[in-house]
């Protein structure tokens, strides 16, 4: 080939992609990732950061893994590129892909293409790698969902993995069934927020505040747009019909586009809409915005200080909410305690760091608006969009794309109102994909906290009183702040039986991005405080730390801090009993190790948690439908969004057994607000418990209708053969041809429907009541090694015992625990978001595959009678006990009690030095 290599401007690049010769003409510096996705339509390759930090874009060039976001397409000239789409030869999954499916190695699936490609590189060189070699090969790909363990297991099993046969009818619940929607995540076919954007769409770019706090004036927007070819329109606050949104019906305090004042760095000011080339060419320095910076209120202390400037003019004292739980008389009870401990704990902002940035597109169809978006909550999105747009709910259709991770961060609106307003005004589809820095600057975070806690017990070790004030930094707008400030006091005394509790939760406004929902809604921060108390009280009495917790653990029949008597399913004692042998072993191992070790010390710690499933003392319903068409197609109309945690599979398992047909018969429609019923949001660990119950009821309803039609007995065995539905009972076989029936709803001739709203009662002024219908419980053990000279901590082992009521799908339960645990490890050891300083995934660190400990899960099934087959939730609980267990282990290893997370090496080293000098 003798193509000139030194010419200017557009050039033609020829390369082989997945075995096919392809060409690209254009800017040779264009990122290969963009060429693959935009020019060749291979959207299986994902973009999570465009900076080499996440590895989602990993492809092979001549058999070696590289980040396609860092590769000029010119450098692929004449070479062979393999993407995820090229892994399944002839449409048949490779052994590696089968192993991923078998082991549940893909949750949301957004990292999966990168993981698979990196692993394919390794396996091509080394068919039987060791776990350490797998880690080295996959170290450049981040996964925020799985905790990596199942990914490693899958790669190790790639040479031999075979998929298990699907569970038989009636045997779905409890089966380690592979994900019903798993294959698309392994082949690159799955469509996320950025993957299905129509070719003719306009693009939207947001101009954001570079200041924490500033007033601003806008210049001539029309002139700005007119001077730039391809720029169609610049939208400002004035263009938004009702410029306020927010989670709570009575708090719509966050503007879609700021109006004269910005309250956090990263707040949206203008939306620039035009061709993709036009918005990509925007020079931020030329934007028609003149800011006047104002002094910001940063941090809880500044916000709560008397006379502090107000972040929102009508919120006195910068206070969003002051929530209380009072039971007994804690203050008086301390006088009678044999041991009392007291301390203050601090946590910072934590970023969700889902690997998929916010993305979607909207389109106006007549007098309706369709929004395709990555979201955890289509129905709340629909209602919020109707408010913002001043349209009727029925005029809005939300079609959730696959969601590449949420963890609470995709419960708030992001691109939706921007693309919605633009598409409505311009009459053309409008798309928007956040850049990673933009996602990090503008999205919600875990609430920073400052928690003062005092606790006391009697001489036998029984807890007597706990008093705590938890203050939270809720950022500039309310978001989920009220949820945190009410949920935390309820959980603040931990999963223990405590007669006297005073717990207060306050949320303060500051000039930071809103703090929102993040796996655990403040409970993980609270657990750090109450678990440190348990360690300290046990130590004061000379009791074993596990035995102390076991003595005080809530069990069925006990009353919680809100006076709720737990009737069933309070499995913390069983969790602790299951940990006991591991605990004893770990303690002995630490003692032996520390005897001979010079500067490294090992320690073991324990963390317990409880977590109320679903909304706090609020109605929290879900409705599910199952339809059967005249052709015998069975459809689950599932309004619950699967964000990777696996609800599509769980719902199918529950539906299959309740109906009596195999899982394979079901097709799923997920989350589309035109086609499903409102199942509520995917948060608060509620979908298995609440929507799972609704699906069980829906399936039973359909079964009842079918049995009636077939005149079969209640215990009849059903089967579907084309349009024939058959039942076999003691009388023999009955059958009915569904083709005889006229469609009633859509194509369906029959439908079952089920709704469930978990029973709760409102809390009184002292917070007393039944805020949740059921609680999850867990205890985790952490074994750590501290390098005392460097202050570094390596977590060697986690044993996690979780009471899940019933594990509908043990693989997925383990996956949730692994993933949650690794987020807890991140919270404990490395994650700290500093506005303006850590807006990327190399300054903001999340755990990599090299940071994972050995993780062992122990599933306790203390059935919850209200839940489907006894199940409750597990989405958040995996994270909550981890940081407390690690902090306890550090204390056990070294004697220092870290009261601020993350325990960065320099912080631990400083604390160790301080202790040495004392």
């Amino acid at each position: 080939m003798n193509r000139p290599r030194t010419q200017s401007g557009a050039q033609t690049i020829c390369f082989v992609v997945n075995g096919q010769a392809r060409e690209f003409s254009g800017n040779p510096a264009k990122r290969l990732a963009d060429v693959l996705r935009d020019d060749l339509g291979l959207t299986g390759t994902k973009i999570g950061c465009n900076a080499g930090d996440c590895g989602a874009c990993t492809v092979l060039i001549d058999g070696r893994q590289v980040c396609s976001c860092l590769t000029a397409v010119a450098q692929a000239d004449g070479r062979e590129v393999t993407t995820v789409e090229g892994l399944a030869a002839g449409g048949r999954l490779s052994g590696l892909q089968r192993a991923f499916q078998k082991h549940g190695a893909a949750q949301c699936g957004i990292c999966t293409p990168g993981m698979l490609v990196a692993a394919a590189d390794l396996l091509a060189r080394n068919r039987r790698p060791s776990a350490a070699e797998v880690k080295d090969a996959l170290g450049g790909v981040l996964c925020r969902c799985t905790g990596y363990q199942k990914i490693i297991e899958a790669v190790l099993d790639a040479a031999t993995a075979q998929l298990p046969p699907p569970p038989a009818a009636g045997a779905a619940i409890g089966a380690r069934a592979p994900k019903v929607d798993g294959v698309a995540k392994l082949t690159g076919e799955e469509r996320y927020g950025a993957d299905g954007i129509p070719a003719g769409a306009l693009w939207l770019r947001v101009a954001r505040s570079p200041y924490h706090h500033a007033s601003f004036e806008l210049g001539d927007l029309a002139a700005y747009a007119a001077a730039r070819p391809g720029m169609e329109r610049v939208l400002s606050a004035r263009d938004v019909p009702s410029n306020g949104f927010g989670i709570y019906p009575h708090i719509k305090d966050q503007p879609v586009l700021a109006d004269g004042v910005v309250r956090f760095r990263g707040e949206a000011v203008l939306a620039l809409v035009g061709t993709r080339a036009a918005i990509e060419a925007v020079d931020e320095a030329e934007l028609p915005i003149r800011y006047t910076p104002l002094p910001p209120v940063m941090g809880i202390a500044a916000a709560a200080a008397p006379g502090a400037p107000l972040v929102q003019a009508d919120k006195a004292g910068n206070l969003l909410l002051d929530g209380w739980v009072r039971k007994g008389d804690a203050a008086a009870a301390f006088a009678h305690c044999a041991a009392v401990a007291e301390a203050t704990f601090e946590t910072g902002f934590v970023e969700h760091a889902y690997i998929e940035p916010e993305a979607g597109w909207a389109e106006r169809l007549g007098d309706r608006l369709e929004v395709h978006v990555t979201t955890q909550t289509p129905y709340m999105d629909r209602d919020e969009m109707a408010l913002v747009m001043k349209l009727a709910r029925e005029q809005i259709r939300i079609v959730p794309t696959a969601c590449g991770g949420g963890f609470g961060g995709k419960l708030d609106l992001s691109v939706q109102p921007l693309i919605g307003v633009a598409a409505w005004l311009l009459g053309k589809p409008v798309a928007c994909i956040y850049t990673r820095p933009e996602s990090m600057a503008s999205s919600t975070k875990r609430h920073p906290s400052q928690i003062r806690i005092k606790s006391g017990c009697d001489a036998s070790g029984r807890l007597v009183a706990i008093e705590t004030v938890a203050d939270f930094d809720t950022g500039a707008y309310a978001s989920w702040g009220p949820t945190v400030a009410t949920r935390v006091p309820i959980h603040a005394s931990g999963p223990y039986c405590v007669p006297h509790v005073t717990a207060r939760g306050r949320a303060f406004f500051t000039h930071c991005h809103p703090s929102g929902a993040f796996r655990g809604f403040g409970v993980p921060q609270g657990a750090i405080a109450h678990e440190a108390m348990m360690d300290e009280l046990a130590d004061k009495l000379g009791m074993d730390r596990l035995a102390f917790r076991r003595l005080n653990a809530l069990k069925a029949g006990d009353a919680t801090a809100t006076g709720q008597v737990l009737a069933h399913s309070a499995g913390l004692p069983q969790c602790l009993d299951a940990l006991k042998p591991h605990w004893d072993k770990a303690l002995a191992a630490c003692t032996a190790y520390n005897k001979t070790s010079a500067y490294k010390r090992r320690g073991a710690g324990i963390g317990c948690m409880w977590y109320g499933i679903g909304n706090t003392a609020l109605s929290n319903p879900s409705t599910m439908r199952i339809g059967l068409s005249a052709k015998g197609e069975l459809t689950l109309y599932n309004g619950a969004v699967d964000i990777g945690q696996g609800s599509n599979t769980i719902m199918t398992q529950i539906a299959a057994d309740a109906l009596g047909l195999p899982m394979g018969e079901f097709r799923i429609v997920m989350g589309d607000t035109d086609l499903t019923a409102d199942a509520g949001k995917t948060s608060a660990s509620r979908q298995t418990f609440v929507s799972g119950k609704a699906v069980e009821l829906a399936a039973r309803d359909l079964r009842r209708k079918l049995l009636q039609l077939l005149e079969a007995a209640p215990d009849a065995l059903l089967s579907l053969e084309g349009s024939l539905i058959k039942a076999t009972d003691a009388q023999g076989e009955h059958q009915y041809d569904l083709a005889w029936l006229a469609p009633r709803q859509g194509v369906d001739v029959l439908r079952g429907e089920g709704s469930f709203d978990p029973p709760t009662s409102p809390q009184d002024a002292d917070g007393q009541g039944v805020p949740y219908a059921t609680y999850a419980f867990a205890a985790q053990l952490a074994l750590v090694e501290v390098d005392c000279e460097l202050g570094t901590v390596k977590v060697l082992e986690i044993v996690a015992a979780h009471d899940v009521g019933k594990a509908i799908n043990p693989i997925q339960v383990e996956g949730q625990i692994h993933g949650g645990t690794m987020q807890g490890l991140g919270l404990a050891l490395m994650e700290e978001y500093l506005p303006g300083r850590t807006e990327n995934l190399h300054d903001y660190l999340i755990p990599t595959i090299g940071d994972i400990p050995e993780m062992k899960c122990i599933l306790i099934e203390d059935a919850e009678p209200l839940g489907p087959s006894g199940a409750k939730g597990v989405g958040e609980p995996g994270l909550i006990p981890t940081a407390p267990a690690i902090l306890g282990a550090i204390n056990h290893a070294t004697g220092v009690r870290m009261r601020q997370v993350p325990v960065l090496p320099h912080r631990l080293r400083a604390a160790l030095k301080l202790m040495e000098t004392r």
Partner: protein
Amino acid sequence: MPSYLRPTSLPEAVAALAQGSLTVLAGGTDYYPSRVGKPLTDDILDISAIAGLRGIRDDGAHWRIGATTSWSELIAAELPPLFDGLKLAAREIGGVQIQNAGTIAGNLCNASPAADGVPALLALDARVEIADIAGSASLALDEFILGNRRTVLRPDQLLSAILIPKPAHPARSHFAKLGARKYLVVSIVMAAATLELESGRVCAARVALGAASEMAQRLPLLEAALIGRRCAAQLGEHAKAEHLAALTPIDDVRASREYRLDAGLVLVRRVLNELGARA
């Protein structure tokens, strides 16, 4: 559309540089991350197709590492124990994707205070070869890097190779990096050392510490203190806090100034202990 040149020879490349302002692109692993969300408007000189700039060879008096040699190529190369430290540094760069694409010269030209290649190469007494239309010349690495993201390189120049002099005595090197996680992590601090030995004693020592100043620094006082010492697993005990006195670390999101000095000393001691134990 900006221009994009991808020459296949060094003379073509330096001729192009002499003609106008071009941005040099090698592996792109520093270039693209600095342009997230920004248009790609630079006129580019892509040096990745110049075969002569790639690979490692023995040039008699020194080893010659071509500018565009990737970290992975370095790891895979068969090299004497002198290079153990540099190879360890290479394994600690990003993840495998970054090692496959990123080049050694790119790491030096980017001149980040946290560049892992710099202390490892300082400990090898590396020189860099600079090419322009007039020819080429070499200078010491610590003269090449001026500070945080600053080098002596002029816009019409390329870094064409890294030269590692062959030590007079049997030598080995070691490297250690401290980060807040495993893989893909910017160093909090990192240390590298090369020892030349004669009958069990140190006859030459080169020790460097990175991320503890605007650029990685050699520790001449420590190097002097090591001369004549017997090689043993406690060699590191000769390293003292005062040997780091000339360093000027910063406070940032990763660590405090004080910690960098503290941990730097620990790493230096461990690197020396390891070399001492192996000798």
